[in-house]
């Protein structure tokens, strides 16, 4: 059973048009990044807009014991919540599977690109290391939370400054922030491409998401390296289609990266 909405969106795409008149490879405007939106409480924070989609991410830095298998490394923990404030389709309660998927895609892009050198988060081997908590919240879901969340997480990391750590007492002094940044060695940029009928589009709206056949999120670490991928939707993709989508994501990378500079 194909919905009326999908018939409409797809027939329009078949004529080369989108419901909001954008080109297929065009992101919504404005793309804005505002840093320090929670600067009093979070070590790093940012609000990102992709058109009407709004996401806020915050970074808190905690100190804990390193994992036994990586005694000289800190780590990141990514959590996201699809707030019921941001869409009539989201319900209150603990993060559901969609929120978990979103967290894990953002986590993998950052982790696998080696955007952070986890060794630099080590304070004392086997005893103390920094844990970078990245919390992502949707404020208005007008589509493409994946790419917005990725940008927000990177922006919040970029904005973050370490608080002072008192080695004697083993406590973090949250009210004394240092000038030390989290060094970002790579900028993993995620691009989500939808397949609707035979068409490929970037930066989908809600109506487009509700009409999709397949979705592919491609995170790129640089101009020819992929660091994470996730396919969504229930329609299979051919290998050629995946190659096309990966190329599209690599070509789009630089444009999105500009917003983080």
């Amino acid at each position, binding site marked *: 059973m194909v919905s009326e909405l999908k018939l409409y969106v797809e027939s329009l795409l078949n004529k080369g048009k989108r419901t909001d008149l954008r080109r297929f490879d065009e992101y919504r405007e404005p793309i804005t990044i505002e840093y320090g939106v929670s600067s009093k409480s979070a070590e790093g924070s940012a609000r990102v807009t992709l058109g009407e989609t709004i996401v806020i991410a915050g970074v*808190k830095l905690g100190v804990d014991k390193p994992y036994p298998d990586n005694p000289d490394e800190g780590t990141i923990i990514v959590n996201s919540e699809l707030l019921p404030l941001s869409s009539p389709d989201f319900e209150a309660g603990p993060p559901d599977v969609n929120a978990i998927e979103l967290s894990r895609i953002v986590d993998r892009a950052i982790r696998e690109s080696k955007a952070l050198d986890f060794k630099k988060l080590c304070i004392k081997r086997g005893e103390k290391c920094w844990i970078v908590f990245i919390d992502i919240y949707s404020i*208005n879901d007008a589509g493409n939370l994946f790419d917005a969340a990725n940008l927000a997480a990177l922006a919040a990391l970029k904005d973050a400054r370490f608080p002072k750590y008192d080695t004697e007492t083993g406590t973090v002094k949250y009210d004394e922030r240092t000038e030390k940044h989290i060094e970002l060695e790579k900028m993993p940029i995620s691009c989500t491409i939808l397949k609707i009928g035979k068409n490929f589009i970037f930066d989908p709206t809600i109506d487009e998401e509700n009409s999709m056949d397949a979705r592919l999120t491609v995170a790129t670490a640089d101009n020819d390296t992929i660091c994470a991928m996730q396919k969504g939707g229930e329609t299979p993709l051919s290998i050629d289609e995946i190659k096309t989508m990966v190329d599209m994501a690599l070509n789009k990378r630089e444009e999105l990266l500009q917003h983080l500079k």
Partner: protein
Amino acid sequence: MTQYSKRFDGRKADELRPMEAMVGVIKRADGSAMFKIGKTVAFAAVYGPRALHPTYMRNPEKGILRCNYNMMAFAGSGDRVKPGPNRRSKEISLVTKKALASVLDLSEFPNTVIDVFIEFPQTDAGTRCAGITAAVMALADAGLIIKDMVSALSVGLVGDSVVVDLCKEEEDFEGGAVDIPVAITNKDSKITLLQLDGLIKKEQLFRALDLGKEAAKKIHEVQKKALLEKFTQNGI
């Protein structure tokens, strides 16, 4: 009581922190608002009237109101707070609902629910009050029938001084502080939220409430301006 003559941020006893308000900030919601007071930032979104599930909770006489107060994991002071509801946020959600329900007329929407979600990306004391102030703007933005606007703020005692709109440093004042969150209706200055913990003399409490009544009017001006800005822009 320890003397507290000059406020941390230099404000007068009856002076509120700087405020900002905006309506219609969350496009997917039926009504929404942002309210900022000092460094406390509240977003509120309203969804509904919509079908209420489970059905046994439905009221055939009128719609019901549900409120959800939540601080983002990075929005506290100090350590990251575990996301999700806790005893504190559940109680605040409850008193927020009571504070708003008293001014809302839901008799035209039997069997439905109005959901109010309040989120804080940054906090610096007075969150439940900022949340209520934002929520009532969002309810108005959603076009619901509001019998009287409410404005909420904390009043109280810092050391031996009666002040309005305590900031975090004042709440944590070494010489003792009493925080009294209140929500006050605009037209007839009735109280729809009142909580208190701490020791305060009768005269001080009465004075705090009197100061709160006047300060609430200033918050109301900010709320009114934000609503008018949106609706005059749209030519309504």
